[in-house]
């Protein structure tokens, strides 16, 4: 009896360990929070061009990714860390996991506002938080600013996702940095009072809810809107039929953006490859793939925004707020908690 168990143990062990041991001369190891197909396309393209094998560990939650790099200390296998949201890049830099990028190519390609002031990380692509609304029930001037979502006229009509999600946490952090704690409190209480339903679902769910008439206004990400507008699926297009978008706060601080970025780790064993990859990502080719495959805004001025979004104009972006996100997030979450925004 025991013999049989041992045999089956050994048998299945062999099967599983046979699969995972691949070594290559030139390689690059990346920890990333991004799980998009665009990233796979980029990695494959880079591999083809340079012969450097790109190995990826993807950990969706930035705080967890950071925890792993931190715990692994100098034995970490990560050469490059890529994460969504500037707040996370800021925290990673604070924790001391990066080394200076030291790349002229990056400095030339990426505007200074989208790079770390100490040269530890660079932005790679952007999404804009914008306001989607029901064309038939809401006028665009009613939702020109984020602040307008707290107006009494929109009572019972506003849709948002949970503040458990980093999108809302970062948005609140920039709000806090721009207008102060009291303003954020008043605003988030106002939004909470205006809600059409309990905060829930993802960005696409908010758009679906507008289409279904559950509410009339929602904060959503440009990436999802662009994807729906560009979809080959007729149901997706149908969804957007009565919906339009505005880039908020165009006359003041600009629309809140969410920046993905990356930095080379302090203990990188393939730092040169990591630099080469970042340079590739901010090159014209790389940026075009970001714009077309994942419908993100490029960080280079000379690469066009995703075509479907261009129809809605060139947004003014709140780049000043970016640097504040990391520092202000805990306090902002506290305010959201107190306001009752789940």
């Amino acid at each position, binding site marked *: 009896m025991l013999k049989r168990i041992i045999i089956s143990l050994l048998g299945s062990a062999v099967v599983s360990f046979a699969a995972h041991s691949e070594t290559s001369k030139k390689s690059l190891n990346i920890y990333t929070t991004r799980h998009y197909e665009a990233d796979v396309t980029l990695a494959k393209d880079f591999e083809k061009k340079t012969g450097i094998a790109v*190995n990826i*560990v993807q*950990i969706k939650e930035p*705080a*967890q990714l950071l925890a792993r790099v931190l715990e692994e200390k100098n034995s970490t296998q990560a050469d490059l860390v890529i994460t969504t949201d500037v707040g996370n890049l800021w925290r990673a830099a604070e924790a001391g996991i990066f080394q200076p990028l030291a790349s002229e190519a990056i400095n030339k390609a990426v505007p200074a506002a989208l790079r770390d002031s100490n040269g530890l990380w660079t932005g790679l692509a952007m999404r804009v938080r914008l306001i989607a609304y029901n064309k038939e029930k809401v006028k665009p001037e009613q939702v020109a600013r984020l602040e307008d979502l707290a107006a009494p006229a929109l009572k019972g009509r506003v849709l948002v996702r949970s503040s*458990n999600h980093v999108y809302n946490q970062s948005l609140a952090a920039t709000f806090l940095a721009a207008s102060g704690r009291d303003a954020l409190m008043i605003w988030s209480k106002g939004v909470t009072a205006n809600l059409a*339903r309990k905060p829930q679902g993802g960005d696409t769910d908010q758009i679906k*809810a507008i289409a279904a008439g559950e509410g009339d206004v929602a904060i959503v990400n440009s990436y999802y809107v662009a994807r729906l507008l560009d979809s080959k699926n007729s149901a997706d297009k149908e969804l957007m039929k009565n919906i339009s978008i505005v880039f908020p706060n165009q006359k003041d601080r600009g629309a809140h953006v969410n920046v993905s970025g990356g930095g080379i780790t302090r203990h990188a064993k393939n730092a040169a490859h990591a630099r080469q990859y970042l340079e590739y990502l901010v090159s014209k080719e790389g940026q075009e793939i970001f714009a077309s495959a994942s419908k993100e805004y490029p960080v280079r001025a000379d690469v066009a925004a995703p075509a479907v979004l261009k129809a809605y104009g060139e947004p003014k972006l709140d780049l000043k707020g970016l640097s504040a996100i990391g520092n202000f997030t805990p306090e902002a979450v506290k305010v959201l908690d107190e306001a009752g925004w789940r």
Partner: protein
Amino acid sequence: MKIFLQIFIFALVAVFLAPVFALLNEGVQSLVSEKATLSSDLLSRYGLTSLLLLAGSVSGAVLFGTSAAYLCARFDFRGRRLIQWLSILPLGVPSYLVAYTWVDFLVDQGVPGGSLRNLPNTCFVFAVCLSPYVFLPSFSAFSALSGSLLESAKLLGKSQFEIFRLIEFPLARASMFAGGILAGMEVLADFGTVDFMAIDTWSTGIYRSWFGYGDRGRASLLAVILFLISGTLLFWETNVRAKNSLARSGRSVSFHTRKKLPFIKSLPFLFVALIPALVSCVFPALILTQRVYSKSDPEQWASVVSPALTTLGMASVSSVIVVVLGLAMVLIWRSNPGKFVRSLARIGALGYALPGGVLGLGLLILLAPFSLTGSVFGLLLAYCIRFATIGTSTLEAAWLAIPRVYDEQARLLGCTSWGVFNRVTLPLLQNSIACAFILTCIDIVKELPATMLLRPFNFETLAIRTYNLASDERLSETAPSSLAMIALCMTGVFVAEKLGAFGVSERSRSGK
């Protein structure tokens, strides 16, 4: 020999508890920090929601699981084997997948999303998905009830209902309870489903502290508290079971025969018994299949092959280890019934009570100094710690049901304690071993957060693939990996059934 066993169990418990101590250490450090953090008000609200969710989900699971088990164990009717098999199926589908699929489907049908994401619906999702945890042990318990006991009750003029209330229910209660506890621990540790269903539980508090406030220590502390609560539950369960095992100590089992049940009479039971399988498995599988077909892209399956192989390999290796460890633990309990050692071992098996992501953090802290993060070994360890309870509790329950007189008889016939184990206990546990193996396998196939945090480079499981697509709000594209996951788990269930994992005493009855 005894000394070796003791050292072994101490070492094992040390390994199992190490991540908890790592977390506790993190947590204590956070007590002195003055950072902004989750208010205790909100936290107590999260706690209350967790309790409500726990109560609703577990009672639902017990209702579904027990009805099906009772029906299948005590009566014979047309389609019994099918019901038996359908009742186990929900095991093959993770609860988050059920939630994703249904909500997405219903919203597309025009049902407002706001009316779907609420506490009762979340309880329902858990109840159907976790009902097999109750079905399996109660089915064995109902099947193993002594036939003579039931006969004599009937001779005393007790009605069917009285027999259920006075004999069958009390004797099967321990098993139902054990299953309910496992289900409850799963509910408490869940994050994916409640997050999607917009329910804020204790786990939300943990992750919000960590990800929102950037307060890892506080998150660890909350996780340790959750761990202690689950631990208490588990001890409670053990006490109930210990009391109950007296009811059938010492006597070998004589099997009862099933009563014929006319089809009409079985209908109400049948209806309740079918709900879990239909809701958690059949409809989602149909919806997903429809999606795969409507896309008619032959490429979509190619991306699933490698994650499927990875998943299969990891699940089977870890499960074998979990089962062997479970046997070792139970062997030690049986030969050394000292209370202290028993309690220790039980605490050691509590990894199940920790949300996977937090257990992952504990392991990270532990494994990093040895450069073991991102290794297959680290992942195996994580799975063993997380799922050891399934192995030990399944096997222990089965072992307790083996009358001691078999051990004594074997000794009188010249067996050493090892001989008794190898020649009597192991063969008698064969069904339960298969059962524990499959249960562990299936849970590992579904495991997400610890895998994501600790995995090696270029390592993707079906659960991760599904989750990533879902969190990118591309639910329709999750269909192939979700289906592969369901198929894998169903195959597991099927194989286990063929091995006899669920057909308790099926063979014995056919002879009469």
